């Protein structure tokens, strides 16, 4: 089957800045894929290249088998991009904006039923006749997602879709996007909320300084972290013998990195010897954030 996305040795330079350094990536159809990395890692550049907003310095990118430069019309029909910024056209209301967007893709009144469905699914029915300027931030975000879907693209790219969005809306958006994935859409997501990526995505690519430093299933990536985390709330400061284990600290609240569960007994013994009371304690499994921190620190 043709991959949804095929990125081959892509380099992108902005003057002296080498934003992408030979990225190779294949995303299969139907995947829920996360593109993670710190700010400046090259995630948005990669998305812009896929969307045709930027041109690669070298290498090739294809969406559903269509080259984004040579077959840009077919490639853009196959991809819907939800941009990170809350951009909008202040002259039009939600429905007009969606009809225009569908029209750019050659879709006319026959597409109105789908537009109505998208409007309803995203909870925009009451706001369909409202000018974009008058929408709240959350509603603008929904409208942006709707705009990316009007031409029914098989591949949907969401660049930080839940940035600045309240919990209720975030939950609603993820339910909707999960439904799209179940219906066969390939979803590519960038997010700073790593727990979102962990819960939703079956595969993850980690980018650092323009290079893919890890590409694996979420399960396999989590398996690379063998240790546990121990969260402690103490009556006093941690004794000096344990400071090497500290991963996070806020006053007398500590998160310690342990090699294995056997180390818990050693930590408790040291605390007893130092006459420090444990007010609360939690043993936590490693998550994607641990993988992220570990890989970013290592590479």
């Amino acid at each position, binding site marked *: 089957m043709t991959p949804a996305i095929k990125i081959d040795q892509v380099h992108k330079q*902005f003057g002296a800045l080498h934003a992408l350094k030979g990225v190779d990536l294949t995303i299969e159809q139907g995947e829920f894929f996360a593109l993670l990395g710190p700010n400046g890692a090259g995630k948005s550049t990669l998305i*812009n290249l896929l*969307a*045709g*907003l*930027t*041109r690669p310095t070298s290498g090739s990118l294809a969406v559903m088998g269509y080259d984004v430069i040579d077959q*840009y*019309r*077919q490639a*853009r*029909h196959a991809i819907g*991009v939800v*941009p990170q*910024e809350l*951009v*909008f*056209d*202040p*002259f*039009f209301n939600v429905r007009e904006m969606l009809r*225009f*967007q569908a*029209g*750019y*893709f*050659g*879709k*006319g009144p*026959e597409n109105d039923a789908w537009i109505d469905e998208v409007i309803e699914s995203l909870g925009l029915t009451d706001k369909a006749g409202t000018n974009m300027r008058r929408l709240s931030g959350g509603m603008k975000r929904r409208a942006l997602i709707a*705009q990316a879907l009007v031409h029914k693209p098989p591949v949907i790219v969401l660049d930080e879709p839940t940035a600045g969005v309240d919990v209720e809306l975030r939950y609603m958006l993820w339910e909707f996007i999960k439904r799209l994935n179940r219906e066969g859409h390939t979803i590519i997501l960038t997010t700073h909320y790593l727990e979102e990526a962990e819960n939703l995505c079956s595969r993850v690519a980690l980018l650092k300084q323009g290079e893919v430093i890890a590409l694996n299933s979420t399960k396999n990536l989590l398996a690379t972290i063998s240790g546990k985390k121990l969260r402690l709330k103490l009556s006093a400061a941690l004794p000096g013998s344990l400071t090497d284990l500290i991963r996070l600290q806020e006053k007398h609240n500590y998160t310690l990195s342990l090699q294995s569960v056997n180390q818990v007994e050693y930590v408790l013994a040291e605390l007893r010897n130092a006459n420090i009371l444990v007010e609360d304690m939690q043993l936590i499994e490693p998550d994607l954030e641990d993988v992220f921190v570990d890989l970013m620190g290592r590479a």
Partner: protein
Amino acid sequence: MSLIDQQFRGPWTLFKKEILRFWRVSFQTVAAPVMTALLYLLIFSHVLGGRVEVYPGVPYTTFLIPGLIMMSVLQNAFANSSSSLIQSKVMGNIIFVLLTPLSYLEFFLAFLAASIIRGLCVGFSIYLVAICFIDLPLTHPLFILAFAVFGSGMLGAFGIIAGLWAEKFDQMAAFQNFVIMPLSFLSGVFYSIHSLPPFWQKVSHLNPFFYMIDGFRYGFFGQGDISAWFSLSVVVGSFIALSFITISMLKAGYKLRG
């Protein structure tokens, strides 16, 4: 729906959106320029009417109207494409067009056609109001139409160039005030270049706006400062040259696609 219909619908939608964009604020984009042109007409005809006769048998107020119409046509055609582009770039919503399968040529044609429509809309409105008060002949209507279409097309293309180049409203205002305004005011809207000293007559011939105004005026009165056919060839030539530059910039993704 055939594939041709589908392909045509993209640029048609962009054209329609550009038309609606200015029509939604028609008080500002159509009514205001009509008002400005009529104020010019009122003041200049009051000050100079009866004292100046540029063409034999043509009162100054009548002489003034075609120039004012064409000046407004040109300024508004430029304003349409340039303001739409700079607003979309500054607001960031240009991305909605860039993400679509529209080609650079379709983008150009949609913006150009919308600029021409706005120019013609403003020009026709001024004409309609003016003929309520002044008897204006229409000697060569096809010349009038040709100069209005090619002139607004030229300025529409120029507006796209300015919109692509400018990154902030300040730069766009500079373009408008230091290029478009002087060229249009010094093009013979208010006078015949024969009233100028020989040196300034020669300088006027370097101004493409002069040919647009003079040719357009010829369409009304059947007389002008130079041959209408020569003016038309200059205007069409300038339109083709500017269109070529604009299309090249769009093809290269100048300041649009990094």
